[in-house]
């Protein structure tokens, strides 16, 4: 089952080709990792899928039960709302002065807005809205528990440690009940212990909630440990696609990461590093 099809995607920024006829698929309920050297176009790809940038060529199609949905040309908030694609950012983008609970409630905005009948029912304090609000709080509490932040529910998130902020951002995305979760370098800046916890959390999201995940990540231990499928980009082109095992030994991938291998010796330590993953 495919959830998302990316077909022949291309975008240039002032002459610089950021993505060039890129095609791949994202299988449903699995974790697909996008890897590649810096500047390969991974974040740009995310920005196009989530509607923050518009592609110049190609199509992105979401396959829902109700039928396929083409995402091109749709604004970002529309994609998040109607296609159910949630994302996190390379540097966390929480609402720093608001509390953790508030952050998680903002993620449920559209549902609550409808329940409050555009604030009128909310102003009147009608029971229907009260109930919806209680449900939203329960959901927020659930996700706070999952990321181990219940104790910080009423704390402005700007004061939380960096690692906690990253986890909270994932919890916030999950509160939106996404069909597809796009994670932009979730392990960046985490220490090894936090990285392990992150792997557990993402695996749980896959196993327990069946959420499809698209993962951009540099930390190979995270990528190899988690993903069901890996897509490798270099200079905006796809150079490999397949299971992690395959990717690890793909000569094109090794070349992309290590450079053109000189005839003499490949830097052994790096090759081993890649192998270990």
């Amino acid at each position, binding site marked *: 089952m495919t959830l998302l099809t990316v077909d022949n995607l291309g975008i240039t920024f002032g002459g610089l080709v950021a993505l060039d006829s890129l095609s791949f698929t994202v299988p449903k309920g699995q974790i697909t990792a996008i890897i590649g050297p810096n500047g390969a176009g991974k974040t740009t790809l995310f920005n196009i899928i989530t509607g*923050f940038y518009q592609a110049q060529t190609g199509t992105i199609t979401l396959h829902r039960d109700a039928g396929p949905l083409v995402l091109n040309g749709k604004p970002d908030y529309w994609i998040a709302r109607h296609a159910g694609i949630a994302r996190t950012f390379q540097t966390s*983008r929480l609402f720093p002065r608001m509390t953790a609970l508030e952050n998680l409630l903002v993620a449920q905005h559209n549902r609550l807005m409808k329940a409050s009948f555009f604030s009128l029912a909310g102003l009147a304090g009608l029971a229907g809205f009260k109930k919806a609000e209680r449900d939203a709080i329960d959901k927020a509490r659930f996700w706070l528990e999952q990321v181990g932040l219940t104790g910080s529910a009423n704390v402005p998130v700007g004061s939380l440690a960096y690692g906690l902020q990253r986890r909270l951002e994932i919890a916030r995305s999950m509160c939106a009940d996404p069909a597809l979760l796009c994670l932009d370098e979730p392990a960046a800046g985490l220490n090894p212990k936090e990285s392990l916890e992150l792997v557990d959390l993402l695996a749980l999201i896959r196993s327990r909630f069946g959420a499809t995940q698209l993962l951009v990540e540099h930390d190979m231990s995270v990528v190899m440990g988690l993903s069901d499928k890996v897509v490798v980009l270099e200079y905006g082109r796809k150079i490999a696609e397949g299971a992690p095992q395959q990717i690890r030994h793909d000569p094109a991938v090794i070349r992309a990461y290590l450079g053109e291998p000189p005839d003499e010796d490949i830097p052994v330590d790096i090759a081993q590093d890649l192998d270990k993953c």
Partner: protein
Amino acid sequence: MSDWRTRGKTSLSAAVLAAILALPILGFQLSETGTGLTVLARLHTVAWVFVAVGLGSFALTSARAIKWPSIALPAQTSDRLGWALAIFALALPFLPFADRSLIDKATLILIYVMLGWGLNVVVGWAGLLDLGYAGFYAIGAYSYALLAQAFDISFWLCLPLAGLFSALFGLALGFPVLRLRGDYLAIVTMGFGEIIRIVLLNWQSLTGGPNGISNIARPTLFGLTFTARALDGGKTFAEALGIPYSANQRIFFLYFLILALALLTNFLALRLRRLPLGRAWEALREDEIACRSLGINPTNIKLSAFAIGAMCAGFAGSFFATRQGFITPESFSFIESAVIVAIVVLGGMGSQVGIVFAAIILVGLPEWFRDLQNYRMLAFGLTLLVVMIFKPSGLVSRRSPTIVLKDPA
């Protein structure tokens, strides 16, 4: 900056600088003679500036050297303070020292408190810098005056209509421009404010131009007027209660009217803040991109804040018109917008209680110096400057959460 010598040095250089700055503008005066302009010297004034700035700077640097206790109000105290203020405001007219002029001043302050609360939704919560707020205030005032005059309908019907009209204007003006960011939005709203004022000034046939509109209908209470004698068929408030007429009755009635309007504004604003809409306003202020990634349409959210802010200004404008009895475009110049923004920022960007204090400081204090007419605005400017330098994040900068998880074990 703690020891005397450095403070003395700083003050001396400030005094010298001030004297040099004052030399051309204060030390010489342009004066008209029969044949044309000439300049007269009055260099002694520069000496005065030297002394005054020297002493003032010494006092200020000394004040800065002292460690002032910070007034960081915990959320609960802030709440209680709010209630205390509300009760005080209700009781004020019955206090022994409450004379006519005090109530008049308090009414004026309350107008600005209400405007501040309205603008706070836009600037403090949604984070949209609106420098044309006086334009919506003007639209409220003029729609009230024109509706009351043209259709002879009562204050109580005109009030919601004027608010609605202002809100519609807010929507119409806001829709095209709300995708602009920060300072661009500020300049465009400022432009709108000026456009509204210029149109009011020049659309003679509708608005009366620079002369404005006079003889605006006064408000009534359940049909009772606050005049000495009732109009044909009507009754005055004094007659209905069987008490002797006094001009104070109207002053006090107006006071309670604006107090009720302001409290209603406050109540609605605070309630909205705790709803999904209010949280979205604040989220938008914090990070618009994150909001978009969560499926929130930023334009709708901004528009709602803009329209609600404009509606409050419309209510306040109607009240202003009915209180004054006449309005001219002059009352809605840029300086009004600046005063209201200053109240919100000084209050602490989002704090309702802070806004009350800011309005008292910025509107109330200068009123007490009315006798020094000419120096009033100078004092206002100085207050803005000094308070911002000493408390750049406003009087009450603590944010209280909109919702709390009860048992966050």
